[in-house]
């Protein structure tokens, strides 16, 4: 971008600002990321591998994958259906509905877990009934899945709503008037239009689902090998002063974050016009 000298800063000022920005990002973002890998390999490759292939770590990885494999698809279905209802129709209280969909982002993760304890816990609303029927939700996998669904709730919807709003409904109306049914219209017209935006939302949703700590921590019960997700397993190892193993498992999640960022950047670069890139 070339600007005339009257609308840009003197050279020394530009370099000062660039140095300031890069210095801050280095200190605040790059160093913590580097520290994860440095601490993980502090005692060598064997100690690193031992931390990862330990049975409790494997169990934590499986649970994290399972939770994401349930929470993400459900949120995809919800996100598409909310975006369809909101962008293809006019109805009252629409802006209220959008605000409510965004609500989980303003709730502390700890409170997001607590709400399910109040509903499904032993002393909760459904507690006595669940106990009678021998169903356990809190301190078990279903609670972890629910808490994850709560914190990842808005991701897909908030990506698709503005995107489908921009695209309008002429394409779909044309398909319907040519005799297509609703499902055909969705799969052959809408889905191809929104696929990159959908993928973008799913990426962010998945990163949060696999990395969530606070909400899951409240409902998990921290039973080793059973109800520990990867972030919770990291906490236990860390509190036991088993730092190498904690950071070893952390490198996997940091790797997931880096892959997420790389794919996100690729999507933004390649399909910028087919995304709605907004804040979170």
């Amino acid at each position, binding site marked *: 971008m070339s600007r005339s000298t*009257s609308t840009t*800063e003197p050279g020394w000022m530009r370099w000062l600002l660039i140095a300031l920005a890069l210095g801050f*990002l280095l200190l605040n*973002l790059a160093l913590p990321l580097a*520290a994860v890998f440095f601490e993980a390999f502090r005692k060598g490759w064997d100690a690193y591998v031992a931390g990862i292939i330990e049975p409790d770590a494997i169990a934590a990885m499986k649970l994290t994958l399972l939770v994401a494999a349930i929470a993400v698809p459900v949120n995809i279905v919800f996100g598409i259906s909310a975006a369809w*209802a909101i962008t293809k129709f006019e109805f009252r209280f629409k802006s209220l509905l959008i605000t409510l969909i*965004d609500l989980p982002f303003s709730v502390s993760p700890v409170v997001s877990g607590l709400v399910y304890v109040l509903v499904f816990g032993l002393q909760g609303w459904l507690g006595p009934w669940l106990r009678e029927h021998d169903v356990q939700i809190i301190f078990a996998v279903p609670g972890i899945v629910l808490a994850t669904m709560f914190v990842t709730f808005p991701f897909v919807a908030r990506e698709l709503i503005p995107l489908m709003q921009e695209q309008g409904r002429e394409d779909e109306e044309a398909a319907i008037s040519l005799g297509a049914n609703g499902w055909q219209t969705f799969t052959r017209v809408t889905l191809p239009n929104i696929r990159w935006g959908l993928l973008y939302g799913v990426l962010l949703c998945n990163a949060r689902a696999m990395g969530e700590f606070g909400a899951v921590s409240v409902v998990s019960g921290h039973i080793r090998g059973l109800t520990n997700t990867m*972030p919770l397993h990291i906490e236990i190892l860390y509190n036991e002063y088993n730092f190498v193993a904690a950071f070893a498992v952390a490198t996997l999640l940091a790797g997931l974050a880096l892959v997420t960022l790389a794919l996100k950047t690729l999507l933004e670069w390649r399909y910028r016009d087919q995304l709605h890139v907004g804040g979170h």
Partner: protein
Amino acid sequence: MTTVALPAATPRARRGLVERSIMPGFGLTMGFTVFYLSVIVLIPLSAVFITTAGMGFDGFVEVALSQRALYAYRLSFGAAAIAASINAVFGLVVAWVLVRYEFPGKRLVNALVDLPFALPTAVAGIALTALYAPNGWIGAWLAPHGIKVAFQPLGVVVALTFIGLPFVVRTVEPVLADLGPEVEEAAASLGAGRWQTFARVIWPAILPALATGFALAFARAVGEYGSVIFIAGNMPYKSEIAPLLIVMQLEQYNIPGATAIAATMLIASFVLLFAINLLQGWSRRRMAA
């Protein structure tokens, strides 16, 4: 947390709740949306307020406004305000540099800004603790100067600064990018110096976005848990944040106590959400003007 801008509803044929349309699937998609929203979000959230209401006013005050809780709120809100201020300053510089200047590695830097969104908070927490502990890369360097960060309230600020940065950068960036060079050229041709142009032309245009970014970073920081608890030291009356106090109450099976503090935090979140909506409205009007 950017709310979606919707065009004004078309006035035609609006008799009931829904406008008639040839598009199919309203009942199905709207039904599922409202059902899922109620089951996953609204009913569980209402449990906080209904349980709190059952405690009675005195019971609520005893826990939610106890000395220990007041210290925790002060730390959570105070550290969040300091961290959001640091992010407002550096976030503006980062956004400015990303929009206005060219330098090698810019695309990589741009991707790195979103790291706090993608990196799990527990990973950020242990990494920051390792860095700022007395024997860490940064801690060892600060220790001879008598500055302690890890296991101190200052550690809370460090963690909240880490997670808040992208909120400011990603809110200010599009507004800066939209600001055409014409107004700055006009200011310059009328004899304004670069600093005057910034203070009188650019600053008023980006202020609403900067305030929104600050509020988003602040709101996120107030409720943050994972990245903080490792570095904070978690001493009651000193370095214990409000979300941790909720967890402490739960671990002692004091569910009403946890709920009372959660209700206070939720009300604060709703007030912040309302403020953010007002700020975004201001920002949009400023951009449209």
